[in-house]
Each structure stands twice: as structure tokens, then as C-alpha cells.
């Protein structure tokens, strides 16, 4: 399986590249990036010979089977549609797109071309969350009643805070992981979204840096999400990820803050506590699964449709935050 990387704008591209380098049965053969210097640097780091500054040139290579898209959110659609038309399977960073129409175009193009479109919902490969879901499905906490999810991070750099390129701020960036997990755990769709959003931590940003979502699923299960970029630079790590599910017969919680070693040292001369994670590497599992789904010609674990659904919830949250009223999603 020969894979090309499309853009290193999203830092996850470096992790995915490293995984691809180490995978048996797959190889990273080409890199395209609109910033030639960034492309050259990545090519050197990952020992890749084919380097392009034009994405279409990479897609024109007939010996490439699949691409990983890590460009700014607003570029996902054009690149994915072009990749599908070129017959390449696609792993696309989340959020899938910045508009519903774009996401639908991507899904349609992949379907038409008969290629896989996978959304990089990496949490679905987190062992803790996988086990949590198995337990919930097995009835360990009875019937789910209410969920709460927290994914608070540092304020990300660069294009993430450019409304044109990112399509939104914290609410879009961080809510999609949790809402995707909720849907995956419950096998249910969100019916109504209420949200607040704001730019409360970094007043100069042109996008929201915080928000709160209150969701109701069709089954009546309710959920809350805090997707804010509220972690200060002094926080021990990039952010946090907590999920709690309250059921009729119990409660289950996951935390990403437990599988870390605490370092009381000085980093670049700055003394602070640092949490270094030691938990399992789920980027590896996700990329492996992408390759496996191509080989086995089966649907990916998180499809384009899943990406669309999470996007719809985030966009409804923005609509609600603007109008001050709950927003019903299409059924």
C-alpha cells in the first residue's frame, strides 16, 4: 500500500507519517505541501523522495493508493474530492470539513469513485474508550442516561484560529471528537443542540475559544460537552480528555490524565509540572486500521458520514450560540 501525505499544516501529519514509516504492508512514498520548505523538511525527516508543492501532482501519480489529508479544515473538501476522483483512498483529519455541503461533496465523491473516506476520529482507537464502549454495550452500567465530555486544550497556533481556514474555533475543533464518541457509544443521533460560545480567554482571536454544548439524543439521552481552549500555557500537557457516562445501574468515567508520569523539572529553562503520557499509541492503531480497511475492502470504523454528523452538531452549536435558542437537527 503506497500512501501520500497531503499537507503538514496539521501537526498530526507528523505522527501519521511516523506511523506509516513503521508499518509493514504500507509505505509513505510521496509528500505534497503548499509550503515548499515544509514539504522539503518533512521529506527529509521521513526519507521520502517524491515531493510536490501542488497536491494534484501527487494525485496524478498512478502508483499511489491512498492519501492522508492534514491540510487546514477549509481545504479538506477540494483535496478529498480531487483525491477520490484520482481513485485514492482517503484518511482525512477532523473536522471532516467546514460546511455541510463540503462534507456531502466529499462523501459523494468517495462513493462515486468507490474509495474509502475515513474521518480521523482517533478516539475510537483509544483502548480506554474502546473498553468503555464495550462495557456500556455489555450493560455494565445499565441503560445510559446522561453523558458528559470534556476536551479542553491550549489555544492552538497558526491557521487553527483563522476563521477562513479553520471554519470555526474551539467548538468545531474539539467538540467533534466527543460528539462522535457519543454517537458511537449510543448508536443514536443528536436531535437538539443548545450551545454557548465565546472568545473569553484570548480576546484577540477571530474565532471562538470556548463553548458549552447541551445535547439531546433521539432516545432522550442527554449530553454536555466542554470543548474550550481553556488550558493555560502552564498546564502540564496540551489539554485533557474526560468522558463520563451515567447509566441506570452505574457510572463509568474515563480520564487521559491518569496514564502519565509527572515530571517536576525544567523545560527550556521554564520550571513547571509536565505530564508525559505512557498510554497506548492510538494514532498507530488508527492508521493501521485505515490501511487494513483498504486491504480488506471494508468500511472504515469512522466514515465520512460520521465526520458529517459530528460537523452538523458543531455547526448547529454555532447556530444556537448565535440565536440563543436550541437548534433541532434534521432527522
Amino acid at each position: 500500500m503506497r500512501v501520500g501525505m497531503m499537507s503538514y499544516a496539521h501537526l498530526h501529519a507528523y505522527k501519521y507519517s511516523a506511523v506509516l514509516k513503521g508499518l509493514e504492508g504500507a509505505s509513505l512514498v510521496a509528500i505534497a505541501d503548499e509550503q515548499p520548505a515544509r514539504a522539503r523538511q518533512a521529506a527529509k525527516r521521513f526519507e521520502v523522495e517524491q515531493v510536490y508543492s501542488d497536491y494534484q501532482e501527487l494525485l496524478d501519480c498512478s502508483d499511489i493508493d491512498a492519501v492522508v489529508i492534514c491540510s487546514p479544515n477549509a481545504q479538506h473538501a477540494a483535496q478529498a474530492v480531487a483525491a477520490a476522483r484520482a481513485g485514492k483512498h482517503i484518511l482525512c483529519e477532523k473536522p471532516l470539513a467546514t460546511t455541510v455541503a463540503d462534507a456531502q461533496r466529499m462523501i459523494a465523491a468517495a462513493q462515486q469513485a468507490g474509495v474509502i473516506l475515513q474521518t480521523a476520529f482517533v478516539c475510537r482507537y483509544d483502548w480506554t474508550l474502546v473498553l468503555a464502549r464495550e462495557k456500556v454495550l455489555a450493560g455494565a452500567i445499565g441503560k445510559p442516561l446522561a453523558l458528559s465530555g470534556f476536551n479542553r486544550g491550549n489555544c492552538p497556533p497558526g491557521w487553527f484560529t483563522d476563521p477562513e481556514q479553520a471554519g470555526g474555533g474551539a467548538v468545531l475543533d474539539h467538540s467533534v471528537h466527543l460528539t462522535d464518541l457519543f454517537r458511537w457509544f449510543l448508536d443514536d443521533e443528536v436531535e437538539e443542540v443548545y450551545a454557548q460560545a465565546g472568545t473569553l480567554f484570548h480576546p484577540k482571536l477571530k474565532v471562538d475559544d470556548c463553548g458549552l454544548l447541551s445535547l439531546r439524543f433521539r432516545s432522550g439521552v442527554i449530553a454536555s460537552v466542554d470543548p474550550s481552549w481553556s488550558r493555560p500555557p502552564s498546564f502540564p500537557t496540551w489539554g485533557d480528555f474526560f468522558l463520563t457516562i451515567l447509566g441506570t445501574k452505574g457510572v463509568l468515567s474515563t480520564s487521559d490524565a491518569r496514564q502519565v508520569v509527572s515530571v517536576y523539572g525544567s523545560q527550556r529553562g521554564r520550571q513547571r509540572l509536565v505530564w508525559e503520557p505512557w498510554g497506548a499509541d492510538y494514532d498507530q492503531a488508527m492508521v493501521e486500521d485505515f490501511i487494513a480497511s483498504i486491504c480488506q475492502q471494508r468500511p472504515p470504523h469512522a466514515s465520512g458520514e460520521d465526520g458529517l454528523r459530528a460537523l452538523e452538531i458543531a455547526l448547529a452549536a454555532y447556530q444556537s450560540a448565535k440565536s440563543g435558542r436550541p437548534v433541532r437537527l434534521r432527522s
Partner: protein
Amino acid sequence: MLRAGIIGAGFIGKVHARSYPQVSGAQVVAVADPSRQRAARLAKAFGADVYTDPWQLLKRRDLDMVDICAPTPLHHQYAIGAMRAGKHVLCEKPIARTLAQAKRTVEVWQETGVQFMVAHDLRFCPDYRRLKAVVDRGDIGQPQMAYAARLSAFPNWSWQNWYANEQLSGGLLVDMAIHDFDFLLWLLGPAQTVFTRGVKAPNAHFHYAHATVRFQSGALALIEASWAHPKGYRFRQTLEVMGTRGVVNLDSDSANSLVTVTSGGQRIEESPLPEDDYVLEIRHFVDCLARHQSPEIPPEEAISALALALAARTSLLKGKPVAVPEAL
């Protein structure tokens, strides 16, 4: 030595009563409860007199203060009765069941000139207090977001299960989440709008709710309240405040300084503080009486907490965001 009478010898009455021996300026001399047996059980430790009719207790001329630990819908009657009888009043939260009752209580308080404090004990919890001090000191910059949780199995100890009767208790938002509503108002200032969702126990009261609050400052808060946690779940309260320059949080799950594991694996966690929030709260009130100072919790703030809790409840029932009324 101030002479105190306790009205209500149920769960919280017991908690208050056992705190008085640690409050040097006051002694319990009377206890009232419709159940003579329950009242007698509390009174015994102090050699206090027992009443089955609180109004008889209020008639006693030698009482300086009354500590109201009766169910919520009775608060205002006894508070007003006590004030009219010239007694200082410490009243369990919430201040009353309705805003009208609460406002009437405050009016009478203003007329009578006695001292009056609503027992929002969270304001006296050492961890919450320290968190407030950190925020006030500016360590996290401007506080912009907060998350407060109060998670518990259903409290099955209330008299005739009145907690579960939302007409009486106001449900978990008015009875329990009001702790967090009050504390967040104290931290972040007046609230603007609230939106709440909840889950009902089968054919019964709401036993889980989450509320999102926008404050007039623009700050946002998420409040989670649960009576739906499994039996045996250790009560948990957490608070996190996020500011422009940092984050501060507390969690009762990691608040016990002494852990004992015995053969067989039984784990006992304890927090052996010499005085808990109830002792500190009652002592504060008693000290204020002795020094003729105003207590730390102005009754108007207790009304604001009730107004927010009731607005959250209205939102829960209507499925719509609700503007929080100006309390007074």
C-alpha cells in the same frame, strides 16, 4: 453565651446540632420537630428542651437565635416567625421554596433588624474557600469559565422522602445544585441566562441535570447535578475555574488525607479536619451576633442563588433558555 433553638431534627438538623459543641459562643437549649422522639434524640446531648410545635419553641423569650433545619417549604414561615419574635435566624439553604417567600422573608428581616444568614455551607468549605481566594488574588487572571459538579446516589433519608417531591423541594436543582449556583454567583457575579436539560427517574422526579449558565460578565459555567449515581457511590463535589491566565480546581475525590487499607482490601479514606464547614458556618454566624457584625452571606445573595436555581428549573421544565431575573 447565646441560646439557640433548632427547628427540624432531621438529617441536616443533626449535622447542625453536632456542630454546636465546637462553637464556643452558643449552646442549644431547645429543639423542635413534629416527631418528639427525633427531637428528643437531638436534645439529649445538650439537655435541651423538646418541642413538637416549632411555634412553641419560637415563643420562648430566652432564645437569642433560631437555627432552621426544617424542609424547604417551611423555611419562610419559621424564619419570619423567629424574626418577628426578635430572634436572630440561621436558615438552611435554600432561603425559601419560592422567590415571593424569599423576598417576604428579607422584607421582614429588614423591618425587624435581627441578624439573618442562609446556611450556604459551601462558602465555608476549606477547599472552596481556598479556591475563591486564589481566584480573588488574580492568580488565574479574569475567571471566564467554570465547571461545578455535585454527584450522589439518591439521598433516601429525607422525611417522608420530601426531596423527591419537586413541589416541596424544587428538585435537585433547587435543593442541591443551589450550592454551586450560589458559589458561582459569588465567584463570577450576576447570572444572565440559564439552559438546563435533565433526566427523570422512571415516573418520578428529575434525578440528573446539567445547566449551562451565562453570567452578565460574559463568563460561562456548566453545572452538573446528579441523584442518579449508583447506590454506594461516594458523594463527589468538584469545581474548576478557568481564567485568562490559568486554571484552578478542586475535587472531593482526592481530598482525603488519610487512607487506610485493611486486610481483606477494605479501603477507608478520611479527612480528619478539626472543624468542618458546618462548624465554621455556625461559628461565623454566632461570632457575628456577638460582635454585631453582618454575616458573610447577605440574604440578598441567597435570593440570587434561589432565583438562578428556579430559573434553571423553569428551563428544565420548558426546554428553553431562561433569563435569570434580577433578584431584588
